């Protein structure tokens, strides 16, 4: 889980840093027209809107990030209210259970119905939150996949125009493969694992069987391991294969330059001038596509990520405060339910990471 969060933060930081370092070069009209046929800004904007994002093709990264922060801060009070309501309700239930258990222990007459009632009440309060968060996570993953179908081919075509053909094909195929893998795993394995984890946690809290607790931990570990494996494998493959593809592309460009140098001087001058123009124009366009892609991905994620994170915090806080008053299985159950939100947050973050890593990798390849 920490590895997934760390990966998302590192990728975001790298993306912001790169865009401040890439120089802006003026492009000629012919190259712009030719490249404009590869990338349709209006179609990209429409695809972004259909996927729940909001970005304007051509806006700067600073403006895009500012707009997302603005959107987030406008929505934050409402999301905070929802999460706080659930957290407070949960805390009240946990505190009542704690008081009842304390009285029971003081009186010396065991009442096994008290923790059971607490577990049932906690489950009843959290069931709608869990369903909503799981549905939100699934929607984000499928929205990302749908947007990737339009963004990645455009990004690959522009990257290929800079001469990095092998790298462009490799990045696109890897991103599409991992996105499909995540989508298939989401419905077929990850969401069942999350629900299985919740069921095992509730059963443990109700029955007190240590085996069920270990079962829940195993399911949580399995989901986390799958996410970490996908993230690590994808970033590692992208890094290693991009390096190899970059060398192949550089060799191909050198071979072309050598062939150009053997041409008639005037023709050689036209060819090398045209190649430099295309490289410069494609570099500018790649930056534009990359910024648009990143801003759209972040805008798709902002509400679900905020909502999941706030619910995770609310449940974790309720569990911690209740455990401080009276430690027990019911308080621990709230903590385990917060882990379910963290798992969905990891899945959502991973779907964004796949696209962001592909975009950053494409931009760093523009030096062939």
């Amino acid at each position, binding site marked *: 889980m920490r590895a997934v969060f760390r990966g998302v933060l590192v990728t975001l930081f790298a993306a912001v840093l790169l865009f401040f370092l890439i120089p802006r070069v003026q492009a000629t009209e012919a190259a712009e027209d030719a490249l404009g046929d590869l990338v349709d800004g209006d179609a990209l904007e429409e695809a972004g809107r259909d996927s729940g994002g909001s970005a304007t093709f051509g806006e700067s990264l600073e403006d895009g990030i500012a707009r997302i922060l603005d959107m987030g801060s406008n929505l934050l009070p409402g999301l905070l209210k929802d999460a706080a309501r659930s957290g407070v309700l949960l805390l009240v239930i946990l505190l009542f259970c704690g008081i009842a258990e304390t009285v029971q222990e003081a009186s010396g007459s065991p009442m096994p119905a008290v923790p059971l009632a607490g577990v049932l009440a906690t489950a009843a309060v959290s069931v709608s939150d869990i369903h909503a968060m799981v549905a939100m996570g699934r929607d984000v993953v499928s929205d990302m996949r749908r947007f990737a179908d339009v963004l990645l081919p455009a990004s690959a075509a522009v990257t290929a125009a800079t001469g990095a053909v092998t790298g462009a094909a490799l990045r696109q195929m890897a991103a599409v493969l991992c996105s499909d893998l995540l989508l298939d*795993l989401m419905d077929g394995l990850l969401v069942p694992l999350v629900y299985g984890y919740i069921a095992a946690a509730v059963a443990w809290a109700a029955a007190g069987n240590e*085996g*069920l607790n270990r079962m829940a931990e195993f399911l949580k570990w399995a989901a986390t391991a799958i996410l970490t494996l996908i993230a690590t494998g994808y970033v590692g493959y992208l890094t290693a294969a991009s390096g190899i593809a970059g060398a192949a592309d550089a060799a191909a460009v050198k071979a072309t330059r050598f*062939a150009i140098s053997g041409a*008639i001087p005037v023709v050689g001058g036209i060819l090398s001038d*045209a190649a430099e123009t295309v490289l410069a124009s494609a570099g500018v366009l790649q930056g534009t596509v990359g910024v648009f892609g990143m801003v759209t991905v972040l805008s798709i994620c902002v509400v679900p990520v905020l909502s999941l994170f706030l619910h995770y915090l609310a449940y974790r806080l309720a569990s911690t405060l209740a455990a401080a008053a009276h430690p027990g299985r019911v308080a621990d159950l709230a903590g385990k339910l917060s882990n379910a939100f963290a798992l969905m947050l990891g899945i959502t973050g991973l779907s964004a990471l796949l696209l962001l890593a592909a975009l950053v990798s494409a931009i760093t390849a523009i030096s062939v």
Partner: protein
Amino acid sequence: MMSFLRDWLLGVTGAALALAVLKTLVPRGSVSKVCALAGGLAVLFAALQPIVSLDGDLMAEAAAAYQAQREEYQEKLQESRDAVLGTVIESRAAAYVADKAAEMGISCQAEVTVSDDENGVPVPWAVSAWADWEPGQQEALGEMLERDLGIPPQRQSFMERDE
């Protein structure tokens, strides 16, 4: 691959869950220990069985299919890149021809088409020029085109401006 992973994890999970329920139901004593041992062996079998039956050829076929798909897509990207480069070369070459013609006192509009040479490099291949031609201008421009751009006379077209 998805279904393999799903079936494997669910199998292990189901076996472990059944073992947990069994341990709860069985009374403490030697029976419980025997059940724990049997259940542990069942979980181990559930964990190892799909791995043992994993088809190595399937993995090799999947890798080969991915590689073939990537190469096909790479060819398409190369074609789109060549198309962009070709368009810019045509534009540059046409501008060069018009500039050179202007130096010769010819006001003409030129259109150049490119084609790959023997090294796969797109080079100017043919030219069409439209102008109000005066005597000798077509020959002078033709010599320049052959000297500077390597376009032989058979690939040069000179037309009147209103054609």
